[in-house]
């Protein structure tokens, strides 16, 4: 039995939900959704839990993460209850629930907290560099003298360590809430045998393709495909950058100038281009509000792509200044670049919008594990007879 809690609806509204109360449970949203199933009848299931304030089930469900916001549900809804945006708000709310520090809840529900934290971390980075930077060589660009590689690398690793810690603990909470509380017994072996799903979906968002598969309208189908393609490129871009910075910083942050055909250059350029494309597309889309997934924008929906855009642009500038041999300009842009990069990674990945990068594939993975376990528990027909 679930106890009704009317506060959840108001809570979700703080996370950007609109129109949940208008829903009269017709189920058109679930009927039109290409990803919904009998086991996971979202978005209606999620909206209904929100309406009656069933916090326990709301927390333990994977449903919001299984949606890629194609927006068919919102377009079909006869009541303007915006089921797509409810799913989005639920993802934000869940991010807040998984996060034990409480920071995610603060960031999602208070713009002051989010902006303040970004500025604070940015200023901290500026202060640290101001305190510990090396000599400013002005004759030529010597970035590694200004910011010695081994120190930056160390800082990278410290930051990566912190990220891993927060992500891992939050993921553990997600696991606890979604996999352990409903009493379903799940043999460990399935976590191993299904692990490939985690990797596959993290890298490809394979299920997103389903959203466009049955779309009859060519324009909408193309828009859906474009969204996924650009998102894939974006993922490849920041994935590449992450690998370069964490593992190949010495190769990447260098005062050497490589020839254009060298991977150091074209890999960097590739990443830059797709990051610009991805962030720019998201922001432009939110300004135009033409497709369903961009009609509503929570502050967090703006801040993340803006940060990404600024980080990319400052990266480009800094790169350009080095090539134009402008030492001071290079050093200063570098500082600005780091002052945006650090909060983007530290705040957005474990506590903000970027957290969907691991929650979403994890949810698909958990869903697969659950289904395997369930299939095993259901005694196949004839098995009992065979046992006799």
């Amino acid at each position: 039995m679930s106890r009704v809690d009317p506060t959840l609806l108001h809570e979700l509204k703080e996370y950007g939900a609109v129109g949940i109360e208008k829903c009269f449970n017709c189920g058109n949203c679930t009927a039109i959704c290409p990803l919904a199933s009998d086991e996971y009848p979202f978005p209606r299931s999620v909206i209904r839990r929100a309406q009656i304030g069933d916090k326990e089930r709301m927390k333990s469900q994977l449903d919001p993460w299984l949606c890629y916001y194609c927006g068919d549900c919102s377009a079909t809804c006869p009541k303007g209850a915006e089921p797509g945006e409810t799913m989005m708000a639920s993802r934000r709310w869940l991010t807040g629930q998984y996060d034990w520090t409480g920071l995610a809840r603060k960031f999602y529900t208070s713009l002051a907290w989010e902006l303040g934290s970004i500025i604070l971390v940015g200023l901290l980075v500026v202060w640290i560099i101001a305190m510990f930077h090396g000599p400013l060589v002005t004759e030529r660009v010597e970035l590694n003298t200004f910011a010695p590689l081994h120190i930056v690398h160390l800082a990278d690793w410290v930051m990566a360590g912190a990220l891993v810690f927060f992500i891992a603990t939050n993921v553990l909470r997600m696991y606890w809430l979604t996999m352990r509380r409903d009493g379903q017994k799940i043999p460990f072996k399935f976590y191993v045998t299904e692990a490939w799903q985690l990797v596959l979906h993290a890298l490809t968002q394979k299920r997103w393709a389903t959203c466009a598969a049955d779309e009859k309208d060519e324009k909408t189908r193309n828009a859906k495909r474009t969204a996924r393609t650009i998102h894939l490129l974006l993922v490849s871009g920041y994935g590449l950058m992450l690998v370069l910075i964490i593992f190949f910083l010495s190769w990447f942050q260098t005062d050497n100038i490589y020839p254009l055909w060298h991977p150091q250059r074209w890999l960097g350029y590739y990443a830059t281009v797709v990051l610009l494309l991805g962030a720019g597309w998201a922001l432009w889309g939110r300004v135009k509000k033409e497709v369903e997934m961009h009609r509503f924008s929570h502050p967090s929906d703006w801040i993340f792509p803006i940060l990404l855009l600024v980080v990319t642009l400052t990266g480009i500038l800094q790169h350009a200044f080095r090539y134009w041999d402008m030492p001071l300009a290079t050093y200063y842009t570098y500082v600005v670049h780091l002052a945006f990069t650090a909060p983007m990674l530290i705040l957005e990945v474990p506590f903000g919008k970027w957290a969907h990068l691991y929650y979403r594939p994890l949810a698909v993975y958990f869903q697969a594990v659950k289904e395997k376990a369930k299939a095993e528990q259901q005694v196949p027909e004839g098995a009992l007879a065979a046992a006799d």
Partner: protein
Amino acid sequence: MPEKLKIGVYTCYCGGNISHTVKCEQVAKVMESQPDVVISRTNMSLCSDAGQSQIEQDIKELGVNRVVIGACAPSLHEQTFRGTVMRAGLNPFLYHHIGLREQDSWVHTCDCDGATCKAMHLMAAGIAKARHLQPLEPIRLEAEKQALVIGGGVAGLRAALDIARQGLRVVLIEKSPFIGGRMAQLEAVFPTGEKARDLLCDLVKKVAGHPNIKLYTQAEVTGVTGYVGNYGVRILQHSRGVSAEDAQALMTACKKEVPDEFNYGLSQRKVIYQPFEGCYPQLPAVDWENYQGEPISLNGGQPIVLEDAPQTFDVSVGAIVVATGFDPYEPRQGEYSYGELKEVVTLPQLIRHLALMKSGEALTWNGHPVRDVALIHCVGSREIEGVDEPHEDGQVNNYCSRVCCTASLHMAVELHEKFPALNIYELYQDIRTYGRGHEDYYRGALDGGVRFVRYSGEERPQVTPAPTGDTHPVLLRVKDSLTYNEELEIPVDLVVLAVGMVPRQIDDLVNMLKVSRGTDRFLLEVHPKLRPVETAVNGVILAGTAQGPMNIQESLSAASAAAAKVLTLLGRGKVELPPFVAAVDAEKCNGTGACVEACQYDGAIALQTFTENGKEIKRAVVTPANCVGCGACVAACPNRAIDVQGWTLSQYEAMVDAIGMNIVDLVEA
């Protein structure tokens, strides 16, 4: 010399309904050879203009003087063809109708030959009867151009006013001391949001000021005699108990208080009282049931004891409009914890509670702030036999009360507007907001954040007290089909039962008027579609919720319809009744009185003493207006002295002979 019989026989195809099973042409051919038949025709659709013209033409040109029609059921088109026959100049009762469709083709679709034989028998019987048909005249009675309206609620007021405006006199009686009925207890009413008492006041003013309406409050019917056009009604009226001069002083001096039924017991009132400001009549009245002779001291003077001096008087009316209204369903002790938990109230109570609150006051109940409120639909309505406990009469209220859905949603919207922080739940089975503008309340409630929970009549919600330490005093448990049939627990401060409508306790009146009730115990109309406000008793008309659950709008429509029926009935000062009543053959009657004993209808037949050739003899005399033509007297009479006109014994015998004929004889006749 009696005129020669010329029978016209018509077998209708009914567009195939009959002809697909019955071989109509064969039937018509056989009928042609029956004695006295001058023409036998078939027709694709006899009720069409062409079909009717054919009959008229035959009457005029062939001299047909008896018409036999085999077609649909007589309830459908008997009247149509009576008109046809009459237009051609024939007495309308020289026509007989046979229900070939309902009685034959529709029930024997698999047996064409059998159905055809049956049709021949039926038609032959009809022809046999037609040979014995005699011209009849409808019974015409003088009618009193005055109507009685029972009930001073909104329906009674509307009906009275509509009748009075057409120049007929109206006697309007109301059992309670004040008129306005249930509507006076409402505040803003859907779908316009106007104030109920303002609307009512308008109507009351017009009724009060109308010269044709005589209003009696504290009055009830104690006896009814007579028949349509000439009812004699005995009315008992209690005295007001106070006069305009001493009313205020007596009200102030009176100390005894009783729960105020106007506020459904939420407040107290004195036994000399006015229910609300602006009531009509304005003069306070003594509640005789609760005032039991307690002396009242006026300004320290001698204590006075007030006394009721009921008066009885008779009125003559041509028709009676029953507008006795409804009662809100009173839940049983313990039903949804009603009567056990203070936090469980009915919707009418909540309406009064809100009305009694000061504006701007926070919503409280029982001294506690109300943060969460649940409204449960269908309380005392749509009950299921075998699931819900039967009521005192062994029945369940299986009907839908129709107004409660919109009333609940209206309340939810009003609560949301007045108290935006309030969490509101609607526990419903189906949302039946059927009227124009009603759905807006559903939309408004949804948009206002009212939460809807859908239960099934098989498993009604449970209301239980919350365990100590809970945040709320009451817990609702309900299986919600919108949440995949999961059981929900809803903590609330107040549970509101949207109670349905039940008929009022009017057993005495029902017995006096001899009107029938439906299985839902509301008064029953003759036909839900064709005669929706008339009862089976001629001249007794229904108005408003005495007939079944209705909202104000519908009550008023019904009341105006009732008024229209009264006006058509009495407007000409004469009433016409069908002639199918008992008739006594004075030659044969020797006054045994068996018929009077057999008769179940008051005043339909009686023995009268006549002086004939100096001898006093008794003979039965029929009062046609009171006779329903049931035939009980015909069967009882040892001398065959009584017949029901239009259905005489000789007619029956002829029909039976024809039915009993061998089909071969019939065909070869």
